[in-house]
């Protein structure tokens, strides 16, 4: 009511002004350009929210593909890599990624202060929320690769460093206007196959190598053993949530509500479904003889990761090809890492690292403008190769140093006893799935009363 009154008086005042000074009133008129600016801001903010929703997808996917005895731990890692990572990105990451600086890192806009970057007509908060959602995505990929054996304390430190330092430097190279964007044939990674996903995947690879495999992953003769996750429904639901979130990740990266977003959503969809299909068929025909649910889930995500770089640069058919090939690549990669004793409980290294690299390189083949298969020559493919190699090497070295430092100081891996019992109780106090307290288990008087039946 108060609001309506205020509006009425504002309108009244506006009317008065209009009659008094028509020139001023004309200036206050909303132009089509103003509407477009607002539309862009709304679209990118909604996209950012969708990307943040991917955190829920990652949490469920990783929980589902690992064992019940460490489920509280993996949920906590997902919770904290977002929270700690977002603060680190706010404090220094955003300035390093987007602040003006040199070709390798930015140096302006600490804590979103003076010189904080905003893209075109997007406001600083909208640009930041969108970008922090991406930083959190890169960070959270690693928790799955390091699942079921990592000290929470070490993981916490890692998530601050990747969101505050490692990821922002890579972002600056391309999206921040750094050297990758200044090559003669500019690097194309539209929404971050390499900048976001491969960064997470390579960091996960270094983490998994530093940790070593879970106890029981390899039989005495060295053969990898399957360790089934505890909830396929969680895993598939998580993958569906990630798919939904990707409609913010890819179309949102257009950074404007324009005519291109529909086409980007289309290539994203086609690659995802093609990836799921080919991974299922690869398992069915060539590997296990059955359509494997967990691997098909990974195939869907592999298609999504792979199309992320080229979603605005390839045709529909190109998207099907990239997604479909990624679905085959991911199966090979999972089997390969199992064989070389890199234990990645959820397949994050294969999905995000390998298919992130593959998808970025595939732009050099399938881009309708400049791709090798479209008569564009090898220049773009070469640029993509340079970018993937440089980013991969940078992350491998920095993440490798980080995990080695953590290993040498606070320790990276939990004790054998803790790993066997599951991380939940020893790291966090309570199991993820606590049995209901019954007559046989009396609550101590220390906490709140649990149930009147018990008294």
């Amino acid at each position, binding site marked *: 009511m108060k609001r309506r009154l205020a509006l009425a008086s504002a309108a009244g005042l506006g009317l008065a002004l209009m009659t008094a000074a028509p020139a001023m009133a004309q200036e206050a008129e909303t132009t089509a350009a103003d509407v477009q600016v607002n539309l862009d801001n709304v679209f990118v903010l909604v996209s950012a929210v969708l990307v943040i929703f991917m955190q829920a997808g990652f949490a469920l996917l990783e929980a589902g593909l690992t064992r019940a005895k460490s489920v509280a731990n993996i949920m906590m890692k997902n919770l904290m890599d977002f929270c700690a990572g977002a603060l680190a990105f706010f404090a220094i990451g955003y300035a390093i990624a987007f602040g003006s600086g040199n070709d390798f890192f930015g140096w302006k806009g600490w804590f979103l202060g003076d010189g904080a970057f905003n893209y075109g007509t997007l406001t600083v908060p909208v640009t930041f929320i969108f970008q922090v959602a991406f930083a959190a995505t890169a960070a959270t990929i690693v928790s799955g690769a390091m699942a079921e054996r990592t000290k929470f304390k070490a993981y916490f430190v890692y998530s601050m460093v990747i969101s505050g330092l490692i990821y922002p430097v890579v972002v600056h190279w391309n999206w921040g206007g750094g050297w990758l964007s200044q090559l003669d044939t500019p690097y194309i990674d539209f929404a971050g196959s390499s900048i976001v996903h491969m960064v997470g995947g390579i960091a996960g690879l270094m983490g998994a190598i530093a940790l070593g495999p879970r106890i029981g992953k390899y039989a005495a003769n060295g053969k990898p053993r399957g360790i089934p996750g505890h909830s396929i429904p969680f895993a598939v639901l998580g993958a569906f949530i990630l798919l939904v979130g990707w409609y913010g990740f890819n179309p949102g990266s257009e950074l404007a509500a324009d005519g291109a977003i529909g086409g980007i959503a289309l290539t994203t969809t086609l690659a995802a479904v093609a990836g799921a299909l080919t991974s299922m068929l690869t398992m069915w025909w060539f590997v296990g003889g059955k359509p494997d649910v967990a691997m098909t889930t990974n195939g869907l995500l592999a298609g999504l990761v792979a199309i992320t770089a080229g979603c605005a640069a390839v045709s529909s058919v190109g998207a099907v090809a990239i997604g479909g090939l990624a679905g085959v690549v991911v199966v090979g990669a999972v089997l390969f890492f199992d064989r070389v004793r890199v234990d990645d409980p959820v397949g994050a290294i294969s999905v995000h690292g390998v298919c992130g690299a593959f998808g970025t390189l595939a732009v050099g083949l399938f881009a309708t403008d400049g791709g090798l298969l479209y008569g564009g020559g090898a220049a773009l493919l070469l640029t993509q190769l340079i970018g993937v190699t440089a980013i991969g090497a940078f992350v491998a070295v920095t993440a490798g140093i980080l995990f080695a430092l953590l290993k040498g100081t606070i320790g990276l891996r939990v004790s054998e006893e803790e790993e066997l019992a599951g991380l939940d109780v020893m790291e966090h106090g*309570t199991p993820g799935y606590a049995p209901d307290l019954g007559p046989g*288990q009396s609550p101590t008087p220390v*906490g709140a009363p649990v149930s009147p039946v018990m008294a």
Partner: protein
Amino acid sequence: MIKLVTAIIKPQMLDSVKNGLQGLGVLGLTVTEVKGFGRQGGHTETYRGAEYTVDLIPKLRIEVICDIDVVDKVMECIRSTAHTGKIGDGKVWVVDLERLLRIRTGEMGPDAI
């Protein structure tokens, strides 16, 4: 003489016990999820800052049927493979079995082991 060896062990020691017994040539065992307490008397966990006691701790009960000739070896094998040295490692006990029958073949006594 046929013996029934029953052991209560920590759940995470199952793999090591099972591998040990298989190495000994034991042809079968039965595992049951059980809960109980011993001298340890349960332990405390914390949930949102409040403590609670878990009086009955999850354990596994494994049962092995074997001949009297090997019963000492089976007991020693379980002891060494289930051993962590910490409280709550469990117990092993042995009882005589009066009769034994394999359902599929109808074999009786030691043949049915």
